[in-house]
Each structure stands twice: as C-alpha cells, then as structure tokens.
C-alpha cells in the first residue's frame, strides 16, 4: 500500500494498455471456452458428436447475430433493449404476410424491413430527439411487443411456405446449418466494420468521450442513428431465422432475449460503459454460452441452474481481471 501507482487506476477500464487488455481478456475467455468444451466431452458421452454440436449451435446463433450489432451500440455508449420485441413484431408481420399468401422472398423482405423500421424509430427517438436510449428502448420494447399481442392475442400464425423453412432448418454443407454459416459471415463483416473502418474507430471514439468526438468533427447523431438501424436490421434477420426454425409465430416469441443478448455482449468483454470491446470477444462469448447451456442440458440440469451458472460466469469473468490487476498494483515494484 506504500507505493502510489504511476498511473491512476480507472475502474471502468479493464486495463492500462488497450492491446494487452484485449489480448488477455480474449485469451481468458477462449481458455474458458476450451475448458468448457473439454469438461463437456468428459461429462457426457453424447457431446462429441458432429450432429449434436450442430444442434447446439442453434442455441446461440440467432442471439449472436443481434449481439454483434448490440456490441457496436454498447461500445458507442448506447443500448437497445427492444431487440427481442422487434423480433416478435417482425415475426408477426411475416406471419400475417404468409397468411396473405406472400412467398418466401417477400416474407424475408418483410421481416427484415420491419426490423429496419423499428430500428429507425429507435434511432429517431435517441439520435434525433437526444433521449436516453435505455428509456426509449424500454418504451419501444413494450410498444413493439404490444402490437404483436394486439394482432395475435392467444392465437398463432403458421402455414409458412415450405421453402421458408430453409433459413432456420436448412444445412449449407454437411453439419453446417444455414444459421451457423450466416453467423460466421456476419461475425467477419462486423469485425471488419468495427476494427478496420473509420466508422468503427468513430464508434469507439464516441463511446470513450462523446464530447471530444463531437469536437473532432464526428457526426455523433448520424453514427448513433446508423447503429440503431443496424441493430433493427440484425433483429429482423434473427426474426427470419427464428420464425423459420419454429415454423410458427406467437407474440411471446423470443421473450427475454434482450437480456441474454446483452449478457453475451458483456461477457464478450465489451465495456457496458462504452468505449471498449471487440467482435472476437462476442463470438467467443456466444460459443461459451451455447456450450454451457447445451452441456448442462445434456446432463439434464434444470434451466434455472443454467441461469445461475451463466450469471456466475459473467461475474467471474468480469471481476477476475480487475482482481488480478489490483493484486499486481499492490505488489511493490
């Protein structure tokens, strides 16, 4: 306790040097993923089976697609809690369209279109009117799902065309489902967008210091609007996949997903306060969550215990680097 640290410790940043920090965070998360994989293979004789693992990917692919866009949004210092409600509304719209006899391409366009539309509503309210995103999206969460409930009540839409089933039940190659391939492609696209473009740098800049970003000539509102639109778009795509996988729509579809998606993003090392995070981390976090739920499912562990496990995982992975760093700082140099 005698030595004063050379640099002041900022508790909301997870390290002093950005590169070292992300290196270690992802390494840690990756180690966790590998260990969970090994533990699963030892614990259940059914785990190491290509088809079973393929089935397991469905537990996270749709949520991860939305999590990519959510990661950008959270890095920029905003949040969107209406994503699951957007999925419900987009799915309801597709269901209504399917009843009206619209074919598969039209249904996909409608699902994605409704998602984008909802994203635009959020974007106008947050970026245009400068309202706090957490309040706006809690509001639109009730609004979007409310519309789905008014349209459907306790009924369900079914009767999707057979070709529509491909998005949620089809396989591109061997055990690789369409959803999994789409997840991988989107991961690469978002990684490029965040880490290799001006846009991505600006998102980081806004999240670190919006005021400074504004003075550097970054059009903060335009970027935030784009991010909400992007989140809506991804929710629309997730709605297409989920609806296709279930083959029917109820207003309770994707209930509670918003928190699972935010958990995935935060577990992936994205700072909930904005300014820091990588797509790679979110990808690994998606695998960690998918493997844990599937592995525990194979052991027939009740769902509530899984939630506890995910919660503990989140707390441990967030606190561990902080504890290690404090431990290091206390050691005399």
């Amino acid at each position, binding site marked *: 306790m005698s030595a004063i640290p050379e640099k002041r410790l900022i508790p909301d940043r997870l390290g002093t040097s950005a590169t070292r920090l992300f290196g270690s965070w992802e390494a840690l998360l990756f180690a966790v993923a590998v*260990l*969970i994989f090994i533990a699963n293979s*030892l*614990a259940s004789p059914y785990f190491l089976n290509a088809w*079973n693992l393929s089935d397991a990917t469905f537990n996270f692919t749709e949520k991860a697609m939305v999590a990519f866009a959510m990661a950008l949004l959270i890095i920029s210092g905003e949040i969107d809690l209406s994503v699951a409600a957007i999925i419900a509304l987009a799915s309801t719209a597709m269901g209504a369209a399917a009843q009206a006899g619209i074919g598969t391409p039209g249904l996909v366009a409608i699902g994605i279109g409704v998602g984008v539309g909802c994203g635009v509503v959020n974007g106008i309210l947050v970026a245009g009117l400068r309202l706090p995103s957490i309040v706006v999206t809690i509001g639109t969460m009730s609004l979007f799902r409310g519309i789905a409930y008014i349209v459907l009540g306790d009924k369900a839409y079914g009767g999707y065309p057979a070709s529509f089933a491909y998005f949620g039940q089809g396989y591109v190659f061997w055990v690789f489902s369409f959803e999994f391939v789409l997840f991988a492609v989107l991961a690469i696209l978002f990684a490029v967008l965040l880490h290799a473009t001006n846009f991505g740098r600006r998102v980081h800049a806004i999240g670190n210091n919006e005021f400074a970003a504004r003075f550097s000539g970054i059009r903060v509102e335009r970027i935030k609007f784009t991010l909400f639109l992007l989140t809506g778009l991804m929710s629309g795509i997730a709605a297409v996949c989920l609806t296709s996988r279930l*083959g029917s729509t109820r207003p309770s579809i*994707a209930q509670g997903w918003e928190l699972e998606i935010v958990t995935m993003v935060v577990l992936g090392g994205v700072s909930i306060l904005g300014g820091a995070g990588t797509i790679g981390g979110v990808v690994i976090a998606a695998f960690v969550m998918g493997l844990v739920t599937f592995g525990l499912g194979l052991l027939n562990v*009740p*769902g509530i215990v899984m939630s506890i496990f995910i919660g503990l995982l989140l707390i441990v992975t967030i606190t561990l680097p902080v504890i290690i760093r404090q431990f290091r700082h206390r050691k005399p140099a």
Partner: protein
Amino acid sequence: MKLLKKLALGSAFAFAMLTSQAYAADTVKIGLVVKSLGNGFFEAANKGAQEAAKELGDVEVIYTGPTSTTAEGQIEVINALIAQNVNAIAISANDPDAVIPALKKAMARGIKVISWDSAVAKDGRIMHLNPSSNELIGKMCLQLAADHLKDGKGDFAILSATTTSTNQNTWIEEMKKQLPNFPGLNLVTTVYGDDLSDKSYREAQGLLTSQPNVKVIVAPTTVGVLAASQAVADAKKIGDVYVTGLGLPSEMAGAIKSGATKEFAIWNPIDLGYSATQIAYRLVKGETDGAPGSEIAAGRMGKIKVGDNGEAAMADPFVYDAKNIDQFSKIF
C-alpha cells in the same frame, strides 16, 4: 500468475461439469418434457412418471423443461434429449406448432414422441393423451350431482362460463345427452357466469332465490364452482344446497371444509404422468404402434384406447373429497 488463475478457473468449471453418469445399455430412457419447471401440477405428473418407471423396472425418466413457458426453451430441451439418444419423449407443449420441427427431427432419429396434457399438433407426435374425454366429463358431472342428492333424485342447475365457450358447451351437451341414464335427475336451468368471479357469484345467488327447488349447482368451470360455493356459504344454505363440478383442489379446499361441496372432480396429474410414461414405454418396446384404434396397456390405469386424430382419453376425472383434499391441495 495469469496462467495459474486461468487454470484454477478452468478446473472449477471442469469440476462443476464432471458429474459422471453411468448408463445401463438396455434401459429405456424417457424424456418427460413439461411446460416449465417449478409448477406443482407437473411436479405431481413427475411423481406419477417415477412411479411408472419403478413399476416397469428398466426405465429411466428424465424430468425436464424450460424455466419459463416458452417454445424456444422447450426446443433447446428437446435438442438436448435427442443428443442423449433417449428412446421416447413425452411432452406437454407450450406451443402446439412451434415444437413440431424439433419433434419431427426426434422422430426421424427413431425417438417415439407423444404429447400429454397440452397437445402437439398431429404432425409432431405419434399420439396425444388427454386427461379425460368430453363424454367422461359429462358423465362425471351428472354422477357428482346425483351423489349430492338423496337417492340421486332431485333438481339441479348448471352454472357455466360464457355462452360461447367451446369446452363448457360440449360438456353441457354431453350431460344433456346422458341425462336419461340418471332418471332421478332433473335439470332445471343453465346460467352463465362468464368465468368471472363476481358474475358467477351473482348468478349463483340468483339461482338460490329464484329456484328454491334446486338442491345442487353443477359448475363445470373452476371459476364458477368456487364462486358458487362462496355464494352458498354466504347465503347460509350449506347442507341445504350443494355445489359440485370441476375445480382445483387448492382453491376448493375451503369449500370442502365448510361443507358447501362434498366432492368435486378434475384430472389427476399423478395418473397423467404415470400413463404418459406407460404409453411411451409400450411404444419403445414395440408392443403397440399407437395408431388410431389401437389399445395400449397402461398398468394400473387399465387399457387406453387411441381414438380419432391419434388422441386418447386417460380416464374419468378424479374425484376429490374430504379424505384426499389435504394431500392434493398442496400439489395444484
């Protein structure tokens, strides 16, 4: 240091997941999938399933379900069961349609799929087990009314839900159809409480004043039977007018204690879980194909006949009275 921490963390996870399980090769594994865990009705069904497993010997029942009543959660559970190579899945579905793709995949991999309690649409299962049938429910309601009357003779009235509620109308229709089998019974009138507590209460009150000859009120709805019992108790007509019908033990315990009703009926979740397990076992063993028209032996529940649409009715609704109400009011 960093490495050490990582290893410590990792081994903690490994330890948490390393619960080794031994599987006997020829055990029949049946996944009992419920709408959500932590629901007394389904806990009771599991009790029945375990009873059946014990009776059959070579059965392992995996009682599982999502935390909340969603189709997505049930699909994750179904995928986990498919991965474990279970022999059969018996499901009470949160959504009759959304679980079909997952269940079709299960059937394609040789798993016998049945639904019970809450049905899966026809394409997604071999057969569905209803707790009872309309015919049996109608008969039971008449039987209950007769039991409350001296020598089974006297006037009774029906307190229903809404005039448009399909279930209630079908049951009332069945009661009227079977009335000739109960020569002492005389149906005076049918009133509708819309499944609202206050309206049902007022309708029951109206019956007590306008129809003094009515000695039994039969309410084939859980809301109605509760409200009518309250109305009889409040009018101080306990022992003079009785209430019976379909009710939940936890809600009706008070009415049994006060004497407003002697007995009422509803399905028994223990029997339902027991029968679902028995049927799943017979299907796995190839003793039956579960096709419409077939009869399936279900242990102490006797033979269960599969009817049109692949739907089967388990048994008469189970009768609850002062002797067993305490046991069941804790369950559901």
